[in-house]
Structure formats: structure tokens, C-alpha cells
């Protein structure tokens, strides 16, 4: 959204309201039986993992507290948290990387603090806009039978052999955002000079399709509609292993584009301590490992030993430094304009 002067005033006010939390932190009451923590999260595997590895441990520590889940997609959750700013029905919501940073600026969710012990072990990039809980970078995924040589660079998307076979990811959305920003970057632009990105993507037309989600993309691979796309590497690996061994996840020399799940404690929660305990448990070994093993989401904490056979499938240590990060303020500010341009020039 475009930030107007009027909004800036409100944002400052929001930040001002949020600031005192740092000083009052120690005064938060201890969780007691009957307290209810409301968590907004995605369904399916993610709900199952936190129920198993976070909720159980939390209940063991604080008997009698109740955990409730509001399930849904990020857009609805975010829209609702914005509508309820300051008097939230959620104590904790999970967002994506750019939404989480904007939410902190807008005074909807809190910036992370060391009240969560595992905060100290987070990678720096996971300490912004809430507590990063999983890296889930975006890269090129393709059918290796259709490739004359393995894909090693984002430039390879412009190789004529993929002409008419690309399923470009729709914008906005984590994959579409990554695709657009990487296109700009490798051709000399940046988030501040996005034009080249749009022009280069337009050169790739006609697309086999525009894909709107990982499920839709896998369907396209299954049906032979498209052969290459820009997608989360993590879950594509599950797909490749369980269904389609021809699909390869590239590791381009320019790096994979960062994407991250972020746990965000709402401004105004009445269960501050409980929410912080929850986040700490999410960042602890059992939950991080379950995410890594079940859906190949990479850990955001440094103090974790990963089984050797799992290591090549994740983004760890030095690879994390390789992840391409962007100025998300610029990205968020321009999202409406870029959406409009994408709809007209790329998708339409």
C-alpha cells in the first residue's frame, strides 16, 4: 500500500504504542490454568506439526492452559489482524517475510525481543519483523528430461529451449515476488529499478501458463502443461520424491530468493508470556527438526544438529548467507503498482 502522510502519522503512533512493551515486559503475568492462546496458522502439515511439537510441550509446562487454532491462508489472517489492530482476537499469527515486516511497522504485530530465549540463536535475517521460524527459499524448479543441461543460473530461464514451456508464478505472492525481483537483479536492476525485470519477463511470453500455487504447478507438471517454473524448493522436493522424480530443484549461482515463515505476536495480546513460550518452543529442536524432516523447511536457528542425510536437502549455515534478500519496505510500498503492471503486461 502507498503510505500517505496521514498514514505515516498513524504508523508513528502505532510504533509509539508498541514501544513501551520493551519496558513492561517483565511485568507480564505468568500463564495460569484457563488462559487461552489463540494461534493463526496454515492448515494441513503445519497445523499437525505445531500441535505435536509445540502445543504438547507448552501444555506440559503450563497445565490447564488452552491452545486454539484459527486456520486459514495468510491474506485472510492478515486482513483480520489489521482490522483488529490493538484489540486482537489472535495472540500469535504466522505471516510471510514481507507481510510480517510491514505488520510491525503498521503497529499490528510486535518486533522480536530476547524475551524469547531462542532469539539469541536466530540468524540475523530471521530477526526482523517477528521471529523467523522456517526458511523456505524460492528457486527454479524444472523437468530435467526437457533440459539440455542442468539449470545453474536464473539466466537459464531465458534459454530459448524453455520458450512456451514456462509456468510463471503469479504476482503478488512469495513466488511471484521472488521471480520479479530476481529477474530485475540479474539483469542489472533492483527493487528500486524494477522496470528491467518487467521487460525481461515480458520477453519470456508466451507462457505455458501462470501458476498461482505450488499445488497448481505440480498439477501442471503432472499433466505436461509446463516444464519449468519458479517455486519453493522445499515442498517441490517432497513432490519430486513422492510423485515426479523428473523434477529437479536448481541451486542457481546467484542464490535462491529468500522466503520465510514468521511467527508474530500481536500488539495488545493478553497472553504475552504464553505467546513467547510458544515461539520459543517452535524454535526448539523437536519442532525445527519435524519441519525439516516432514516438509523440508529449513531451520532459522544456528544451534541445531541436523542428521547427515537431511543436510543436502536443506538450506543451512553458509547457504543461508547466500540467500538473496531485498529491501522489503520498497517491495511492499510498490506492491499495488507492480500488481497492476503485472496483471496488464505479464498475465493479461
Amino acid at each position: 500500500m502507498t503510505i500517505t502522510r496521514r498514514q505515516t502519522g498513524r504508523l508513528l503512533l502505532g510504533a509509539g504504542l508498541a514501544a513501551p512493551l520493551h519496558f513492561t515486559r517483565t511485568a507480564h503475568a505468568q500463564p495460569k490454568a484457563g488462559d487461552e492462546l489463540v494461534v493463526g496458522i496454515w492448515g494441513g502439515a503445519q497445523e499437525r506439526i505445531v500441535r505435536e511439537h509445540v502445543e504438547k510441550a507448552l501444555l506440559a509446562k503450563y497445565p490447564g492452559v488452552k491452545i486454539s487454532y484459527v486456520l486459514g491462508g495468510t491474506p485472510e489472517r492478515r486482513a483480520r489482524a489489521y482490522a483488529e489492530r490493538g484489540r486482537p482476537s489472535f495472540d500469535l499469527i504466522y505471516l510471510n517475510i514481507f507481510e510480517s515486516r510491514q505488520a510491525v511497522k503498521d503497529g499490528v504485530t510486535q518486533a522480536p525481543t530476547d524475551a524469547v530465549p531462542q532469539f539469541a540463536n536466530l540468524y540475523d535475517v530471521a530477526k526482523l519483523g517477528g521471529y523467523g521460524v522456517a526458511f523456505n527459499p524460492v528457486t527454479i524448479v524444472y523437468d530435467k528430461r526437457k533440459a539440455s543441461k542442468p539449470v545453474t543460473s536464473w539466466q537459464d530461464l531465458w534459454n530459448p529451449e524453455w520458450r512456451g514451456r514456462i509456468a510463471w508464478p503469479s504476482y503478488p505472492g512469495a513466488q511471484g515476488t521472488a521471480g520479479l525481483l530476481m529477474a530485475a537483479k540479474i539483469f542489472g536492476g533492483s527493487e528500486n529499478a524494477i522496470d528491467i525485470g518487467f521487460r525481461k519477463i515480458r520477453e519470456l511470453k508466451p507462457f505455458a501458463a501462470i501458476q498461482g500455487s505450488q499445488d497448481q504447478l505440480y498439477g501442471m507438471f503432472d499433466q505436461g502443461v509446463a516444464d519449468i517454473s519458479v517455486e519453493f524448493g522445499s515442498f517441490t522436493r517432497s513432490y519430486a520424491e513422492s510423485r515426479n522424480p523428473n523434477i529437479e530443484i536448481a541451486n542457481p549461482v546467484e542464490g535462491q530468493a529468500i522466503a520465510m515463515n514468521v511467527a508474530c505476536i500481536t500488539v495488545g495480546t493478553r497472553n504475552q508470556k504464553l505467546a513467547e513460550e510458544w515461539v520459543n518452543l517452535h524454535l526448539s529442536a523437536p519442532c525445527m527438526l519435524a519441519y525439516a524432516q516432514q516438509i523440508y523447511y529449513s531451520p532459522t536457528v544456528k544451534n541445531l544438529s541436523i542428521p547427515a542425510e537431511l543436510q543436502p536437502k536443506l538450506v543451512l549455515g553458509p547457504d543461508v548467507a547466500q540467500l538473496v534478500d531485498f529491501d522489503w519496505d520498497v517491495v511492499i510500498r510498490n506492491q499495488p503498482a507492480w500488481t497492476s503492471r503485472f496483471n496488464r503486461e505479464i498475465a493479461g
Partner: protein
Amino acid sequence: MTGTPEQRPFFGPILAFPVTFWLLLTFAAPFAVLTLLSLHEYPDPFGPVLQAPSTAQFTAIFGDEFLVRVIIETLLLGAGVTALTVVLGYPLALWLVRLPLKWRPLAFAVILIPLLTNVVVRSLGIVLLLAPDGLINQALGLVGIPPFRQMLYTHGAVALALAQVFMPFMVLALYDVLQGTSPRVHEAAESLGASRIVRVFLVDLPLSLPGLRAGIIIVFLMASTAYVSATLLGGKKVWTTGMLVWQEALQNLNAPMAAALSLVMTVASTLFALAVIWITRHLTPWRSASPSGFRRLPGWIICLLDLFGPTIGKLLLMCSLLLLLLPLVLVVIQSFNDVPQATVAGFRAFTLKWYERVLFGGAYAASFWISVQLAAATAVVAISLALPAAFALARHRFPGLTGLSAFWTLPLSLPHVAIGVGMLKLLQVFTAIPSFLGMLAVHVVLVLPFSITLLQASVEQLDKAQEDAAASLGASAPWRFFLIVMPGLAPGLLAASIMSFLISFGEVTVTSFLTTARMTTLPVRIYAEASFSLEPTVHAVSAILIVGTVILLMMLNQLVRLDRLYAR
């Protein structure tokens, strides 16, 4: 239900009151918020709703070639879907009324399959049908025709998907009026030398116009607000205003633009609905006791009809049945498929774990019961509000009723996302109400347009002579209502209840804005799963629903007559 409108002028307003009151209580507020939002100059998620009005959003819409094009394309898509639904649904409805009574529950279940399966599953079916190596191309390959590679991600693919899921609405709207036509009318046509196919066009079609009107309005309004199927099968090459509204409202947090777009679409589609009403009124002059012009088909058309009509009719019937059964086949296979994702095309290994997870996993079962209770309560409330309204529309018209009925169908012509956006601003009020009641209030709003439209057609079809006969025999108004009117309305009530139940049961868009930790309905749970990756549990849910529906309809068939008393 006694007296003519002239004798009881207050009767109409009394009948129209309950539904109007409910909508004022629950729908007027979010609609007003939406209208106010559309008058904001720029988006401000935290600003007050009431601001100095500006036409900036509307100027932006009408000054933007892309947006205008999308609006026009969406309306055309709606019209195309409606036409397709009529062509495919009419033979189906005729087939249904000719079926022996004992087969009807099963046939009903077949027609309802698309409504009982998740949108992702249905879309997968269409993808498998139209893909480059899909069913159609394989069939064409058998007869040596080269494959069409460009069938997916087109307006045609989206239209087919929407026609599939809206067909039940058209068929149910037609079913009641079609089987309400007395066999004596058919005998009369036959004695005048009309073949069966000519009779369909000259007798059944005109007499079923009220049902057709209901079906057309419902399907058009739903098709012009659709966005999930359009996203899944249009592959962003097809744009609908529903998709734009979703994008602006949720991804760009631009509520004013989303609101303005919704209102433009609402006005356009309400005008369409009014035009349909006006046209049917002119095509059915006998309803207002005006003389009907003598119509005669030219001989060559009758020849052509007699020659090709039956074959084309059978072909269309086969196409629609196949289209309806496609998701069933998928569901049956996929619910036993041992794969991690619901959208897999091939069968890998047999498993019962998806059923186990749905039935004994706790979370699914709990959501399922919440959805059943909510849908049942919604159906009961909606029908009891809609029935008086239908009588007002069919028998007790009064000045201003047409305008009022446009208000009643408003919830249908607004994209559900837009209603959700309006509700977001009222979340404080909403969360103060017990969550079940709050959801019920909103679901009833969403269901009312359907039940009113369907029931109006049923009431218009009632045989007034039966009531007059009962009256002449001394039956009082309440007796006549319970002994004559209600049994006559039974099929219509049943159709409307099934529809209401299923719409509420499947609603996800508005509900996902309003869901609370204690009220996770089944579709919201499935949608939440799909927001990450959909698992085959969704197929198991559909399979259980389909089997459940068949059993329920068979039981109902023992208790309620699925046809009108005089139809045999």
C-alpha cells in the same frame, strides 16, 4: 393465504417483512460499510469508515481500459456460463422428471455431486479432461484426430468448470416447474399432433419459464462473482472481477478499490437480473391473464426438430451426466490413493488412511459436525423467511415489491469477498455475538436469494383450483395451507432446503474471515489446508458426503413425495 390482493392489500407487506427485517439487521450494515469504503479517496486500513466522499475509485475504474475490459469479460463469461448451463441442464431436468420415482433419489445425488466435491477436486477433473494428454485428446486420438493443446487456461475451460458446478442450481430450479406440468397438458399437445420434441419446445419450455428465470438469475449472478474456479482453470490468463476484488482487498489491502469494483459489478448484474425478470414476464402473458399471441413454428423447423432433436437431446444429456460424474470417479479413486497431495493424477497405492484421518482424526470430525449444525440451522431459518417472501412475490404483489426483491438478491450479486471486507469493519460487533449465531446470521443472508428465487417459482406453479376446491368444501385458510399448499410445495421446499443446506455447508469465503477458534467449519479447515497443500483427506470428505447424500435422499423419499400429487 386467502383472498385476492385487492381484498387484503396489507398481506403482501406482512409477508415481505420477515426477510427484509433479517437483511436489514444483518446485511445492510456490511453493505453500507462497503458503499462508504468505495467512496474513500485512498486506501487507509486503519482510518475511519466515514470520510469525505470521493469518486476517485470509480473514476479510476472507468478510466482504466484493463479494468473495464475485465468487467465486460466477466459479464460475458457469466452470460456464456448461463447459456451453457441452460443447454446442458434442461435435458437433464427433463430426464429427471421422466425417471421412475424410485430412481430419483439416486439421480438427485448425481446432480448434486459437483456441489458435494471441493472446488479443487472439481477443477482437477476439468484439467484431466482438457489437458494436452487429457481424456478428450485421448478420445480424439482413438479416431485419429490430432490433439488440441490449447484447451486449458482459456475462458472456455473456466466456463465449463462453472457450468459444471452451477448445473445443480439450474436443474433444481427447472425440476419443480417441469414436473408440475399436468400430464393432461401433454396429452392435449399430443392430440393436436405435436411430437415429443415439439412439445418440449412449445409446451414445456414456455410453462417452465418461471423456473428457467430462477435458474438463469442464480447462475448468472454466481458466475459473475466467481473467482476460485477462474483462478484454477484460467491460469491468470482469464481475469474476472472477483479475482481483482480478492487481490485488491486482501493482497493489496486496498479496500476502497475492492468495494468500488464490487459495487460496479453488483449494479451491472442486478440490471441483468431485472432484465431477465422483465423478459420472462413478457414471454408469459398468460400469468397476468393477458392474451397470449398465437405462436406457430414454421414447418421446416418442426421437421429439423423431429429429425435431429431427439439425438441432440440424448447427446446433451450424456455430456451433462458425464460432466457431473467426472468428479465422482476422481473422488472414488483418489480417496484411496496413497500420495501426499490431493492433486495427483496417477494412482500409486491403496490406503484407508485418509478416511481414518477424517473420521477419527478428531479435528475433521469436529469441523464436520459444526458445519452440519450450521447448515441445518441455516436451511431452516432461510426457508421460513423465504417462504412468505415467495408468496408475496407470486401472489400478493404491492408497489415497491420489485425494488425490495432486488434488495433481497443483493447478497448474491456481491462477490463474497466483498461481503467479508464489509464484515471486517464490523468485527467488533460480530465477535460480541455468540459465534454460532453470528455465522448463522451471515449464512442465512447468503442463502436467502437462492431460497426465495426457487420458492417463488414453486409458488407460482401451485394449482390455485385445488385451493379453491378446498375452500368451497369449507376448509379454513390454515387447513388449506397445511393440507393443500404445503404438500403441493413439498418438492420445491425440498429443492430449496437441499440448496440452502449445501450452500451453507460449502461456504468458505465469508466464513474464513469470520471463523473463530471455536468455530472452524469443514470448508474452512479444507481451505486452510489448501493454503499450504491439499491432502487427499479432501477426497475422503467428498466421498463420505456423496454416500451420505444418497442415503439421506433415499430416506427422504420414503417420507416426502418428490413430485406433485397430480403429476401422475
